[in-house]
């Protein structure tokens, strides 16, 4: 491979990383807003948040991307630059999965903790901010770590729309070299390294968040069996 082609690959890596960061941020916001809304005491709020989750989890991320690229501009006149279109489609879709993680972790906090908060006259918002979230967030990290890797893999989908991410630059190099094995192996390895870094980073974060609360890091086999349902592209059963 020539240095020009390597440059192409590196540009692709940069686009993938940008897209990953932006859609992860949007996805995190969606996860927490929708996830918290699903534990709201008003049924209508819970219902609407539930509809959001079912709809965005029900559809395919790639179909969502097509929709944002082709239908939004025609139907609503929103012509988004590719990075934002990708961010929107991925953030909304993966945020729906994330909302399940947030809801599950909030519901897993001992109800007695909520009662402790009531007995001290905290408002619902104070209970959420001071008691529930600080206890729930460390539990969310392992499933969120899995979801982040799923999101990384999902970013490759924008290459189908012609956005110059890592997968797309792989295709360009294949066309230039008329040879596939080497470039796709390199591309896959780069994705693997990024995923590895993300997983390690999240594990460090989990350790940091759990420090002092006396909770173990890592799950039991039983939790392991539940995990697919709350993470990634897995669960559809509420």
């Amino acid at each position, binding site marked *: 491979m020539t240095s020009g082609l390597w440059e192409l690959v590196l540009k692709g890596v940069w686009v993938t990383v940008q897209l990953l960061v932006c859609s992860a941020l949007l996805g995190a916001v969606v996860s927490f807003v929708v996830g918290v809304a699903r534990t709201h005491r008003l049924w209508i709020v819970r219902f609407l948040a539930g509809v959001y989750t079912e709809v965005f989890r029900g559809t395919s991320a790639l179909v969502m991307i097509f929709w944002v690229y082709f239908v939004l501009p025609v139907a609503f006149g929103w012509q988004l630059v590719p990075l934002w279109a990708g961010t929107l489609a991925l953030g909304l879709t993966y945020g729906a999965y994330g909302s399940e993680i947030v809801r599950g972790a909030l519901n897993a906090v001992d109800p*007695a*903790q909520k*009662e*402790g*908060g*009531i*007995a*001290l*006259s*905290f*408002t619902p918002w*104070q209970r959420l901010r*001071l*008691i529930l979230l*600080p*206890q729930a967030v460390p539990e969310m990290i392992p499933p969120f770590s899995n979801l982040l890797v799923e999101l990384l893999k999902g970013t490759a989908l924008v290459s189908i729309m012609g956005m110059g991410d890592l997968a797309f630059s792989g295709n360009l190099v294949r066309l230039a070299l008329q040879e596939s094995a080497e470039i796709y192996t390199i591309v896959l390895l780069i994705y693997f390294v990024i995923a590895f870094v993300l997983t390690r980073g999240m594990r460090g974060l989990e350790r940091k968040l759990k420090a*002092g*609360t*006396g*909770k173990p890091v890592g799950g039991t086999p039983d939790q392991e069996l539940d995990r697919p349902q709350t993470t990634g592209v897995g669960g559809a059963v509420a």
Partner: protein
Amino acid sequence: MPTDTLPNPGTNPEKNPDRSTGELIRLEQVTKQFGSNTVLDHLDFSVDAGKHVTLIGPSGSGKTTILRLLMTLLKPDEGTITVDGQQLFPASDKQVREVRKKIGMVFQQFNLFPNMTVLRNITEAPVTVLGMSKDEAVERAKGLLDMVGLADKCDAHPAQLSGGQQQRVAIARALAMRPQVLLLDEVTSALDPELVAGVLDVLRDIARSTDITMLCVTHEMNFARDISDQVLMFDSGRIIESGSPEKIFSDPELDRTREFLSAVL
């Protein structure tokens, strides 16, 4: 530690002119059902300010339910509950929170917040709910921790403490809100036997040296005898007998009460 140096949350009635006297809590015709099981059956009773009332009776007789109703952790199916002149159910969220500020509760399972240090468990609510300055809250919290004998545990997390220590922190946390009423829900039931005495000593101190109204559900009959002004005997969601501790423990009127006491004493 001599009693007169206790940093009491509200010892002197003179210093708390807004502190009520006379009837503080009133339950009228309160009924609570869980499914088809009637836990409280048209219950009436009231508690005067400053009194220490102990609720005894077999488990499932509705004692804990009363505390949880007063703390607004549960809603009654029928009847009215009034605390310091304010009716609960129905009441606005804001009114309910105002009432909650007057009531502290210590739970069987402590319910300390594991994500906070011991000190912050105690200071968080005074700062965020009562708007106390952080410095003042910390100073008072340290005084309270001193009182419960855990001055050196400020920076520990609850998971690092024994059950008895956690429960003493929970008592300090409740007192930090300067409640008029303290609800004690089987506070020693989850403790290893050797840790019970330390917790009860703290509570005896509080009963002796403050004017806080106490409602106490307990199986510790000696403790109940020591601190109570009045003992209520519950059975099947009703108060079947009430009176001074001397009378209830030495000379109860009903066989049912006698049976129960001989089983637990």
